[in-house]
């Protein structure tokens, strides 16, 4: 494997190319007190990235600009500001077609504006990593956290992971490249987090050594040829493609779409290995489970503590990976639960719908509480909803009536 043979060599700024597993699991970690945006920068500093393309939109602008500083310091091969998210995602595609390891960030309306690119990325098997710092997408305008945009990404053919904390973010950016670039996967990754909560708050994050970096991307470990004229220019499509009706054309397209989704499935084993499972379970034997992803899990943990004070035991299921969907894991983790509470930072409750479609006795699922448009989700609200659902009277919360 070409990338492994480079371990021990130095990259363009003198960082030593590390065995990625050892770098992320065994190398000494240094605790740092950083914002999520700074953590993104620190992960990319160690990611041996070739090209990053930036565009300003809150709340990812700071991270995108900080990576510009990395470029100025020589850590990234090339960096520029595109003209819109649609253009940026196409520029990322161009760079990935040309064999580069590519990174970008976006948020909310930017994700929506760029949307046409994502199924194209997946279909073209471009292992681009895109950070999505979720924010409101609807009118009236909101720059505050809201996870509705993730639901639009779920059927694009991208891998979709949802980080809860800055530490997740740091590790998963680096691990994300390792999973997405596997030849049997080779798909783009949307690494999502809840904007502001993760990007703009400071947290202690344990960083890997600054003089170690991931092995460079090897564009020839790919299921499709790299567009660099370094391999024979085979005429891949001998028939008039797409539009002209013929059975072979339809069959080719259908099988390719199935292959993209099969590749998502094949990423499962890699993600399980690198992330130590697609979900994380705390107290699986509890009758009541809070099942969610992102910072709704953090709020769920707080609610868990509040309810423990009242003698109510609650377990937590943190969903780390949304595509591939951890159906078996969720079925197993929830098999004893009588009540499954799914708090979400969006108005539609898309995660609850996915869970309902996964488990037996779906009426065990309580979809909520939902906050949206940038509202916070106080743990008291989760605790109160759980009590209400159980028929336990609780003190009314300000502004909620009773």
């Amino acid at each position: 494997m070409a990338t492994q043979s480079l371990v021990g060599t130095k990259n363009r700024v003198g960082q030593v190319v590390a065995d990625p597993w050892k770098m992320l699991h065994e190398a000494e970690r240094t605790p740092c007190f950083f914002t999520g945006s700074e953590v993104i920068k620190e992960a990319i500093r160690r990611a041996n990235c070739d090209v990053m393309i930036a565009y300003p939109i809150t709340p990812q602008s700071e991270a995108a600009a900080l990576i510009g500083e990395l470029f100025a310091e020589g850590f990234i091969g090339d960096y520029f500001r595109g003209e819109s998210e649609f253009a940026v995602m196409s520029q990322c595609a161009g760079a990935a077609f040309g064999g580069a390891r590519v990174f970008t960030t976006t948020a909310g309306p930017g994700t929506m504006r760029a949307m046409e690119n994502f199924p194209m990325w997946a279909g073209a098997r471009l292992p681009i990593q895109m950070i999505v710092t979720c924010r409101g997408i609807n009118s009236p305008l909101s720059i505050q956290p809201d996870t509705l945009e993730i639901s639009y990404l779920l059927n694009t053919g991208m891998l979709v992971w949802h980080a809860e904390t800055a530490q997740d973010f740091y590790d998963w950016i680096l691990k994300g490249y390792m999973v997405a670039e596997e030849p049997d996967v080779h798909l783009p990754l949307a690494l999502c987090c809840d904007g502001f909560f993760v990007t703009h708050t400071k947290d202690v994050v344990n960083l890997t050594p600054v003089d170690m970096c991931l092995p460079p991307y090897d564009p020839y470990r790919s299921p499709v040829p790299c567009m660099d004229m370094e391999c024979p220019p085979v005429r891949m499509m001998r028939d008039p493609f797409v539009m002209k009706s013929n059975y072979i054309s339809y069959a080719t397209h259908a099988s390719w779409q199935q292959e993209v989704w099969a590749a998502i499935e094949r990423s499962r084993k890699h993600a399980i290995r690198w992330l130590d499972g697609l979900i994380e379970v705390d107290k699986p034997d509890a009758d009541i489970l809070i099942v969610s992803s992102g910072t709704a899990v953090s709020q769920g943990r707080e609610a868990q503590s509040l309810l423990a004070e009242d003698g109510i035991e609650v377990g937590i299921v943190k969903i780390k990976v949304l595509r591939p969907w951890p159906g078996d894991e969720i079925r197993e983790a929830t098999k004893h639960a009588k009540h499954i509470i799914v708090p979400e930072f969006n108005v539609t409750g898309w995660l609850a719908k996915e869970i309902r479609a996964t488990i037996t006795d779906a009426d065990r699922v309580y979809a909520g509480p939902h906050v949206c448009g940038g509202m916070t989700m106080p743990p008291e609200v989760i605790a109160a909803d759980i009590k209400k659902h159980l028929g336990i009277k609780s003190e009314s919360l300000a502004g909620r009536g009773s």
Partner: protein
Amino acid sequence: MSKERIKIAPEMFDIMPEEYQDLVERATYGKDGRGWKDIGTSKELIEEHSLCAGCPESMAFRYILASLPAPEDTVMVGSTGCTSLVFPHVGVHNIHSLFGNQNAIASGLKRALSVRFPGQVKDVVVLAGDGATVDIGLDMTLQAWFRQEKFTTICFDNELYANTGGQESGLMQKGFVAKMAPVGKTFEKVKLPEIARESGCHYVVNCTVSKPNLVEKVIKNAIHVAREIGPTYLQLYTPCILEIGKNSMEGLQEMRDSEKPTERFAYREYVSDQAKELLTELAAKEKERKAAAKKQLAGKA
């Protein structure tokens, strides 16, 4: 790319498709001074095409591919439209991704190739229709020029949306009655060559593809200037004979009629001072190369 890379193991030679055998034995990758005159005597980089019979686009494709100065290190970027039906038959790496994003794709591609192959020639050439270049993709067309991205943009201007059946486009002439322009187009043909000049292109040409030697010259100039200096733009008239009511045999005459001095495709060019200097230098080198080749030939004789 070294020509070695397309060679076939001798044991496998006879089972490879005939077209590929031809590509290995008779293509002009790496040949000095390749050009339109190779057509008919060597393997072309376009196999067959799936355009309408007599479509001037097919001529343009053949001339352009014969004229690329370094096809062995050229990646082309297309867009949706009639051209996207041809690219699958082209013997250089090419990318189709979405409609209108071709200059954004090319920007990322060129930068990636520059990072991966510093100091080596890796030409990027965009070839898209007028709908892709001027309408849906205009911001990305212009922004690539503003940023001085080092690749060539070629627009096949057929003055309408051909592949979808002849709808109005920004490069259509004012007054032309078409689908989606039921009472005639109400505004002027967009002056993209002028806009290209103002947007920072160093070499801009507006012409038809009636003369292969002219196409060869402007393609080579545009690619060399893009490689060394910055963005270049070619707007080539490739009329859609189907949608303007012409027959298969009439495409060439339509181009000849449209390039008369008073017509909209009369030859026009803009060359920046920097580009002029480079082209003069390259012309002198080419003259030397030809003289040396002639001398060598005379020596052999």
